């Protein structure tokens, strides 16, 4: 075993990284100096060729990819391990959460889930004035962004209209921070129009929150509930996801003679290999790492039976266009009915194939399909089932083209709808789009408003001014800015086509 010390030296001497960021980069190097979990030759070859991919999670899984603790446990029982009494006041409850977050691992080294915050905090709000609640939440929000500066970190609120949710929306719009990312869970039977309108107004200010179709998600999970974390992954609460392995659908298409061969031979083959890759990583986590001996399990924050395996796919657009081209048809995924129908058929086939693969130590014994939002190195490949950058049709056609996919991806699928700045004067239009999307079967609604400093990249938020500063070789305070800068350079992400509708009729306006 030899370290490539030059690479380590580059990390240590990198002026753009803080000491903590260097320590984290060094730990990744150390983990990857170990041998990979045992893989059979076929799986190993597919991984080497990156037809399947482990998201570079590391060679020795010693914590699940995503952990979603039930923070209600520590708020109602305290913690023996952390020597925390049961909190009695709002201050104590927030303080308990702030301590708890530091003990929740994930693949990023920071928590990805800070809880269903209105449910958690409302019981402590009796007798707290609106002004006091606002001040306390503002400090809490600032703490999260400054101490856990990672845009994968996610807070959830809703579906009810309540003081905590409203105040969080107010604070979030005011501060315009990267962290926490935020999801409002919308349920037309429970949420009020007023709180949805407040959430939508926030989108036009800071491109947050993300809105989840609560009835659809609730039906996918069980009584212990779910949380939305990281890049819009829906996962079991009090559990999470052990790993995420994904298939590059374009690479599978390239290895197929035609569409029929793809659906009946190559796709099943690589689905099986991707499951084997995930299983090898899960076996290591459960059987060797000792993770599930932690107090998080013994105190009931998480349950080892509630960790799923996320089965990701990406480059659907390129795969469909490639398969259509093979049959002499210049397909335009997202624009042509035939191309879209093939995409839907592939999603349906994936669902059957994944359901046919039993797994060990996985929630409900099967992996959950996920439309994967991309890595910063995915040059020329479109995230998940999205429509390629710069070729998106108008937002309504866009939604209708993708809606049939949503039923197939229970652990998350997100499409970023890029809207031009004219919507800022008309948030009701965004509300219409959101409701239309949900009525069409969308699980999640995410919009980017052109001209906002805060934008979503593959699924997480970055600040455009941070990217500019980073490129000028100043250090970035937040971990995801480095990823975002890399993504902006490598992929056409910032070219997502904002459409100036008012001028659409002008000759050549959008070309």
């Amino acid at each position, binding site marked *: 075993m030899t370290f490539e010390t030059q690479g380590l030296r580059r990390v240590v001497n990198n002026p753009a990284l803080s000491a903590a960021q260097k320590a984290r980069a060094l730990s990744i190097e150390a983990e990857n100096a170990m041998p990979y979990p045992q893989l059979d030759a076929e799986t190993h070859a597919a991984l080497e060729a990156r037809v399947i991919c482990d998201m570079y999670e590391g060679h020795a899984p010693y914590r699940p990819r995503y952990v979603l603790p039930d923070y209600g446990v520590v708020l109602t029982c305290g913690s023996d391990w952390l020597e925390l009494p049961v909190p009695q006041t709002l201050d104590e409850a927030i303080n308990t959460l702030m301590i708890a977050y530091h003990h929740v691992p994930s693949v990023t080294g920071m928590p990805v889930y800070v809880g269903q915050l209105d449910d958690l905090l409302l019981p402590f709000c009796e007798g707290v004035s609106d002004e006091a609640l606002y001040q306390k939440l503002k400090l809490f929000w600032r703490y999260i962004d400054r101490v856990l500066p990672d845009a994968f970190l996610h807070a959830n609120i809703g579906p009810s209209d309540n003081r905590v949710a409203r105040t969080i929306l107010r604070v979030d719009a005011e501060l315009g921070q990267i962290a926490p990312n935020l999801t409002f869970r919308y349920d037309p039977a429970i949420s009020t129009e007023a709180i949805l309108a407040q959430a939508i107004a926030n989108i036009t200010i800071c491109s947050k929150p993300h809105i989840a179709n609560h009835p659809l998600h609730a039906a996918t999970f069980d009584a212990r509930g779910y949380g939305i974390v990281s890049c819009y992954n829906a996962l079991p609460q009090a559990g999470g996801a052990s790993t995420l392995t994904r298939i590059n659908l374009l690479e599978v298409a390239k290895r197929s003679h035609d569409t029929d061969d793809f659906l009946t031979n190559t796709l099943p083959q690589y689905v099986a290999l991707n499951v084997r890759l995930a299983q090898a990583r899960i076996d290591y986590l459960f059987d060797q790492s000792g993770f599930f001996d932690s107090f998080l399990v013994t105190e009931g924050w998480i349950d080892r039976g509630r960790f799923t395996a996320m089965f990701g796919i990406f480059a659907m657009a390129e795969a469909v266009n490639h398969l259509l081209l093979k049959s002499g048809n210049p397909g335009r995924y997202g624009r042509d009915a035939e191309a879209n129908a093939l995409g839907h058929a592939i999603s349906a086939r994936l669902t059957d194939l994944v359901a046919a693969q039993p797994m060990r130590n996985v929630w409900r014994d099967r992996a959950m399909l996920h439309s994967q939002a991309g890595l910063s190195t995915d040059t020329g490949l479109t995230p998940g089932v999205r429509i390629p950058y710069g070729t998106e049709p108008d937002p*309504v056609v866009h939604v209708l083209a993708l809606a049939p996919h949503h039923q197939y991806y229970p652990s998350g699928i997100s499409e970023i709808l890029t809207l*031009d700045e004219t919507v800022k*004067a008309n948030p*009701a239009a965004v509300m*219409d*789009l959101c409701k239309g999307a949900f009525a069409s079967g969308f699980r999640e609604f995410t919009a980017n408003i052109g001209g906002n400093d805060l934008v979503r990249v593959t699924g997480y938020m970055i600040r455009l001014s941070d990217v500019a500063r980073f490129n000028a070789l100043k250090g970035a305070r937040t971990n995801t800015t480095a990823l975002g800068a890399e993504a902006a350079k490598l992929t056409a992400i910032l070219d997502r086509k904002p459409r100036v509708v008012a001028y659409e*009729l002008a*000759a050549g306006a959008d070309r």
Partner: protein
Amino acid sequence: MNLPQARIAKILLWSCVDGPGNRLVLFLQGCNFACAACHNPHTIGQCNDCGDCIPACPTAALSLAGGRLHFDPARCTQCDDCLAACPISANPMALPYSVADILTLLHRHRAFLSGITVSGGEPTLQTGFVTALFAAIREDPDLAGLTCFVDSNGHLGALGWQGLLSVTDGVMLDIKAFGPALHLAMTGRSNARSLASAKIAHAAGKLYELRYLIVPDQTDSPGEIARLIRFASDLGGPQRIRLNAFHHQGVRGVAADWLSAPRQAVEVVAEQLRHAGLGPVIVPAVWL
């Protein structure tokens, strides 16, 4: 039912600048003004089947069949080359639609919409179609709650408004200029009817928005702005006004040499209107 058809240049399923919420927008072909500053000059004329545009099309989407121009949408790549070739500012891609066609579109996209807006061109040139369409929307229980808006230059006469307003929820009315000579120079028509139309729509409680285009050194003179303020104030009560900024996108002819309206100049006018108690005053969200 023998309902009228309309010639429609373009249909949008997503628009946030043609009234409240997201609206389905119909751009009706044909206009009775000839504005030098028109951003969509190819919506002005009506096709006379001369065939001059056919050679301009690189994909043979245009042809003459039985003396009529035929457009094949399946072959069109939306390059817009044919628009520049038409000598009378018509649009070979405008297609006839029936009321039923539009109702089908509305049903399919109901969940995404706050309403429908007819624009153009000048939609009131096809008042029969618009009135029939709006009446049908009102009678359709599945389309309940959708609002019907008209975006007009106001040249329609009082009698025409009577029928149309009875089925319309809101009018967006463009006043191109207040000085009669200036208006004539800019549009080729008098503005007497436009001003009267604003009053008629307002009296019916349906003037949603007055629109005014800022063209530097022409419509932004102190005299013009003073008349805009007086006119809007005389309507009574706060009046929503949208200030548009002239820019060159799509413009042909003499106006291509005019100056674009700079943001600062438009903001100054907006401040004057607000100061006079008018509003809300909307300025462009995007500056070109």
